[in-house]
């Protein structure tokens, strides 16, 4: 019995020592940052699904064949966290998806190699996208693709309400009236996520916005007008937030038939195909507000860590991946819109049902994303669901103060 126990103890200690040795070896091995034996580029992506992973892998393989440089595609489960860990450990991936909302923060902290301005294709991207990924007036990284918001309409419910193609709303008044006509017992006319990334487009259409020429303008009369308009729809019952309908997001409320129209981006087509294949729909541009049309664009760019030894290889891989034919291949595979104007035009011809999303790119702007803004936007998002009964002026005054605090840190 005692002998047995002693043996067990010895085994335990040996095991612990072994684990410790492994752990220490692991530490020292990781510090090299990809030594000379493994010249493979590491590409870290946050994928929307197998289709995207496979498409990126195929594109990368094609480039490897051309250049002879091996590439390893790594799928992140939490892209922001894995990037932060990579940078803290000084072993960032050689190329990665950089999302629009984190871009300014990363650029401000000198994380990113500003490789894009000098490339031949620098002038080919949509100006709104180039703006999104510029820091100090210089394009830092190449936009990968983009999405805009459009008005997604359930055609069956549309026809049932006696509406025709001529009734597709082009201004706020028409939107309010069709939303009212589409509102029946179980269905609301319009729904969208209760967040800045949706509500904000109405601010743009009203001629407002949270930031105008380096000045925080959250409490402008235009923004008040936008929120008041939405409040009117809410109290008329023709607009409801997805959670109030028991749905997780706009696309689910739309697929369930609880909302006849939603404001969403091109990603909705994939979701509807998977979960609600029977729903018939069409996409229109968002109606214009008092100051004209407005929508948001969301995008990722191909980020390269600042000062990386592999930056040259990574840059040539980016040039390959952002070429028109490669971007169109991505579009075919998982439905994103190419970031260059020429490729997007081809895309709009190939997929006329998504043409409205492409058209939005002409006047789209990027939601605010300066360092520290995400915290304030997050706070605003917790207030939006209460808009039905809250005072828009008061909401925006609070937002103005918080945003000014955050923006003063940036300058």
């Amino acid at each position: 019995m005692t002998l047995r126990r002693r043996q067990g103890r010895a085994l335990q200690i040996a095991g612990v020592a072994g684990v410790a040795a492994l752990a220490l070896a692991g530490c020292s091995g990781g510090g090299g940052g990809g030594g000379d034996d493994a010249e493979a580029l590491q590409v870290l992506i946050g994928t929307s699904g197998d289709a995207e992973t496979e498409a990126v892998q195929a594109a990368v393989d094609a480039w490897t064949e051309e250049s002879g440089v091996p590439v390893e595609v790594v799928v992140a489960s939490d892209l922001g966290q894995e990037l932060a860990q990579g940078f803290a450990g000084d072993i960032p991936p050689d190329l990665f998806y950089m999302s629009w909302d984190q871009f300014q923060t990363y650029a401000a902290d000198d994380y990113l190699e500003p490789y894009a301005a000098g490339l031949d294709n620098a002038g080919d991207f949509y100006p709104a996208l180039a703006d999104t990924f510029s820091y100090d007036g210089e394009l830092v990284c190449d936009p990968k693709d983009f999405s805009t918001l459009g008005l997604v309409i359930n055609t069956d419910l549309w026809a049932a309400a006696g509406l025709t193609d001529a009734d597709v709303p082009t201004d706020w008044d028409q939107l309010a009236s069709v939303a009212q006509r589409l509102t029946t017992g179980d269905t609301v006319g319009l729904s969208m996520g209760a967040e800045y990334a949706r509500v904000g487009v109405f601010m743009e259409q009203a001629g407002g916005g949270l930031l105008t020429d380096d000045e925080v303008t959250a409490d402008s009369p235009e923004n008040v007008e936008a929120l008041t308009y939405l409040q009117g729809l809410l109290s008329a019952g023709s607009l409801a937030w997805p959670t109030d309908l028991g749905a997780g997001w706009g696309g689910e409320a739309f697929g369930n038939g609880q909302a006849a129209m939603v404001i969403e981006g091109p990603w909705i087509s994939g979701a509807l195909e998977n979960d609600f294949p029977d729903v018939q729909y069409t996409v229109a541009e968002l109606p214009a507000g008092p100051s004209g049309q407005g929508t948001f664009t969301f995008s990722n760019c191909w980020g390269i860590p600042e000062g990386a030894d592999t930056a040259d290889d990574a840059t040539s891989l980016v040039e390959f991946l952002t070429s028109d034919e490669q971007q169109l291949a991505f579009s075919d595979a998982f439905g994103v819109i190419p970031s260059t104007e020429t490729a997007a035009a081809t895309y709009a011809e190939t997929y006329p049902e998504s043409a409205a999303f492409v058209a939005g790119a002409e006047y789209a702007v990027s939601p605010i994303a300066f360092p520290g803004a995400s915290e304030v936007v997050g706070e605003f998002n917790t207030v939006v669901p209460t808009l039905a009964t809250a005072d828009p002026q008061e909401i925006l005054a609070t937002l103005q103060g918080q945003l000014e605090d955050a923006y003063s840190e940036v300058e």
Partner: protein
Amino acid sequence: MATRAPATARAPRRGSTRDGESRAGWLFISPALIIVGVFLIAPIVLALWVSFTDWNGRNSPLFNDNVDVIGLDNYAAITTDDRLTRDLFGRAIRNNLFYVLLVVPLQTALALFLAVQVNRRLLKAKGFFRTAFYFPSVTSSIAITGVFLFLFQASGAVNAVLAWLQVDGPNWMADPRGIVHVVIGAFGGGEPGGWDAPGFLGVSAWEWAAGPSVAQLVLIVMAVFTTSGTFMLLFLAGLQSIGAEVGEAALMDGANARQSFFNVTLPMLRPVLFTVLTLGLIGTWQVFDQVYLTRGTPAAATLTSPAYMAYDQAFTENEPGIAAAIAFVLFLIIIAFSLLQRFVLCDRDEPSRPLLRRRGPRTIASADGGVAQGTARLRAGPTERGTGG
């Protein structure tokens, strides 16, 4: 430590073997020491350092020209600066405080209740019940949160059951109203004047008094459901070490079931109770999984915890310094609560003190003392009450 006088006399002979032994001892514990040092002590010291710097998360926080020591600025950002970050921290503390105040007593009481039930000698299918109650503890909290989110949807199973009872259930996870506010509102009350001014940590008195939100109640129920199984095991171990004769003795002394539980069993379970409460406090102050999974839901602002906020500051806001400061404030809070709990549990009444000192092999011996005291108090009980009334 050893007795002094004989030690000097025998020093030469024993010293050499002791030296060899202690060297071997150090050698054998060195793997554990190294692991604890590398993976526990070093990260804590490093995090403490980061909490005093403006490190931006790039490269090492040590020996880095871009890193400046900024003193207590990170701590000021979450405590004294009149800014959103401070308000968010205040709200996270408030949310977590209500969570702790409800979860810890409820899970402890439920765990004790379950342990007593499955410890009954007459219970059939003990194994089944023990497994069933313990099962939620070994299931991934991510999976359980997912299931709970489904159950508590606006049109979910819980509201369907409530509908049978003619109760119109709330839209649980989307409801940020504090339950105290709901109750006051039900009686037609509202916010008393002046209570909405920003108070401690930027949170108004009215908000401090809000109670947990309806959405947080779901998380509270879930936490009680998942953790009471673990603590039931601890209580069960404690109950089984008490032995049947103690209960028999109490019975002989004329105690009924309730008296014998509250005056004999419970005092003897104090060490276990202490452990359960301490573990419960630490676990609930560090709540993260559920908060992470419910981020972005409409009531998310009433669910945040300091642990989640530290994650958010580190990885979304890119403010590792503030994140580390939050972690250390949380650490201090947990220590303060543990000390408070120790104080409350130790000094409440004199006779039970020896019980608390009881440790390890002396259990059985001092358990007898416990019986004597328990029975003594049992006898004293009625007379006191009689004269008092």
